[in-house]
């Protein structure tokens, strides 16, 4: 409905709808922070945020501007499995169409082809991303520093035992300078495909990496309104938090 330009609501540049996937079952290690950061930064950039939570069994919203999804426990992944499969086509179409998405940890894994557990059981993913994940006995835990071509240095905290391998259809988010990332062998962290950003990093990811938050917001605004006019968020605390986080031990 909204046209490029100004929303009728108090001079806002327009409404951007953020859909958080499965907050009830996939929201661990502060992944809610990503949804909060998008909401606030949308305001600070002059847009009106609308946050919708999508849980198992809910009707899928007809308009979606940004999608965020987080990590979960094994039990959470089992709970959402069938519902996620039922939404596979919708989510794939959105991704192919260039919708900005951020998926962390558990949903990163399930956005790939499959997750194969240590015992050999295979949990099917939805194949938005050309990646596959294998469960291991080793838990990768600690502070992570990633060098990325698009977002500069990315900082966060990883906690996963699944190891993810990238296919040729995606590129890594970046290479790991501290920590492990996707798996313990190739030194890559996360995946990028169209406007989908996938990562193992909690922390939460977006507060200390506003460049990624603003990429999602800019992409959403451009898709919806044709242009993005940034505001002036005060990122002094974010910069200081980044400096201190980068110096903390693994």
């Amino acid at each position, binding site marked *: 409905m909204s046209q490029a330009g100004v929303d009728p609501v108090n001079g806002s540049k327009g409404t951007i709808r953020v859909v958080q996937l499965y907050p*009830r079952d996939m929201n*661990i290690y502060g*992944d809610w*922070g990503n949804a*909060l950061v998008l909401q*606030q930064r949308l305001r600070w950039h002059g847009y009106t945020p609308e946050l919708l939570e999508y849980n198992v069994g809910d009707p899928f919203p007809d308009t979606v501007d940004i999608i965020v999804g987080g990590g979960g426990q094994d039990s959470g992944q089992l709970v959402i499995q069938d519902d996620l499969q039922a939404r596979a086509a919708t989510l794939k179409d959105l991704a192919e169409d260039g919708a900005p998405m951020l998926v962390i940890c558990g949903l990163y894994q399930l956005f790939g082809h499959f997750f194969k557990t240590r015992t050999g059981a295979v949990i099917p993913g939805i194949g938005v991303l050309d990646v596959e994940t294998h469960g291991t006995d080793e*838990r990768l835990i*600690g502070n992570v520093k990633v060098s990325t071509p698009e977002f500069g240095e990315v900082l966060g*905290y990883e906690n996963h035992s699944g190891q993810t391998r990238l296919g040729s259809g995606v590129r890594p988010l970046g290479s790991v300078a501290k920590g492990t990332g996707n798996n313990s062998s190739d030194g890559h962290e996360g995946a990028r495909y169209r406007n989908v950003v996938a990562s193992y990093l909690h922390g939460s990811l977006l507060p200390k990496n506003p460049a990624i938050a603003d990429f999602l917001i800019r992409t959403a605004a451009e898709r919806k309104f044709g242009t993005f006019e940034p505001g002036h968020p005060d990122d002094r605390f974010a910069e*200081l938090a980044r400096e201190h986080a980068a110096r903390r031990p693994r």
Partner: protein
Amino acid sequence: MFSFSVPLGKLVRRASRLRGGGSAFPGLVVEKIDPGFMRRTLTTLPHGVAVVSGTNGKTTTTKMVVELLESQGLKVFTNRTGSNFTRGVAAALLGEVDWRGRLDADVAVLELDEAHAVHFVNSVPPRYCLLLNVLRDQLDRFGEIDKTAQLLQHIAAKTTGTVVLNREDPRVARIAATLTGQEVKYFGLDDSLLGTFPNDDDMRAAPGSPAPAALPEKPAADVVLRKVGADSAEFEYDGGTVTTGMKLRGVYNIFNAAAALTLARSICGGGAATADHATLLEALSKVEPAFGRGESLTVDGQPLDLVLVKNPSGFRLGLKSFPAGGYATMIAINDNYADGRDMSWLWDVEFDSLRAGGVDQVTGSRAYDMALRLQYDDVRIGAVDTEIAPALAAFIREAQGKPKRVFCTYTAMLGIRRELSKITTVEVVS
């Protein structure tokens, strides 16, 4: 039977004290030389061993149980040093046993960290266990919250007598269904207070997205916390309600009083001593918070409360239990190993209750992570300094004449106490 390892362990204990060594080191030596030492010593106590575990409130709850049992005339062995792992128990034990390895106690009440408790109960099956809660606590150590629940279930399975469970925590209450031989007792909460105790399932549940149902039907609880007043609490048990004064602060501490009462009643009920309600309640009303757990100090003639926060649920409960009105507020967040290195948890706490008054000082090694968190909740910040000493000094100077409250992680709390003892007389008032 004569045990060689006890005299040796005692010698090691003395030597390591002279060296200023850690409290667990002599315990390690004894465990290596004589692994059966703890089992033999503890399981022969007349009332056996009671293990207290769970994510939040172990220290204060254990302290309560000990004082309740002592009020009934029992001699209690406990791991007071705060070494809440197996070696720490062995070390504490070495300090108490005689040269023949005998312990002069009726019962042992031990606070054990979930992961360490599993090892402990494998070698020393407890007669009682009290399982408090499963919350998101330093998940970087255990990996997953469901795994923590499994650790607690294992403790319950190894318990030979009575298992005391939190009826209101679905992950703890569900343990009952997995038990066969044990007697199960619950402690519970009045429905009207449930809202102040979010469990981890409804942490992010928006209206209209209900948390998974707890239990199909609530079992009857041995002790139920009905009401919490400013310095009193109302409990229901044996079909009646009783009101008692409380020195403990914070609703969650008082809920744990219901847990402690249930365990104490279980232990005293069947043995030589019989639970005497009047003396139990009197003892309960006198329990003071454990070190750093809702402690109130006096600085410049004004109260300064230290509220330990170590996980999102604890922080949320702390903010709810200690309203901000009229207080100057400081938050100190460290990310040392004992605090947990992952800062993600700060994003699972909502800070709107601090919006009206703001936060005067933010400090600790992750002060800027905390400041960033507050910025996203539109909470005004006075100053940020990663160094605790100058931040605390500024806080006390600028909030002169006002009561003060400091929310702090564990190692930040140790630093703050150290500083307080330098810059002012630290007098413990409650």
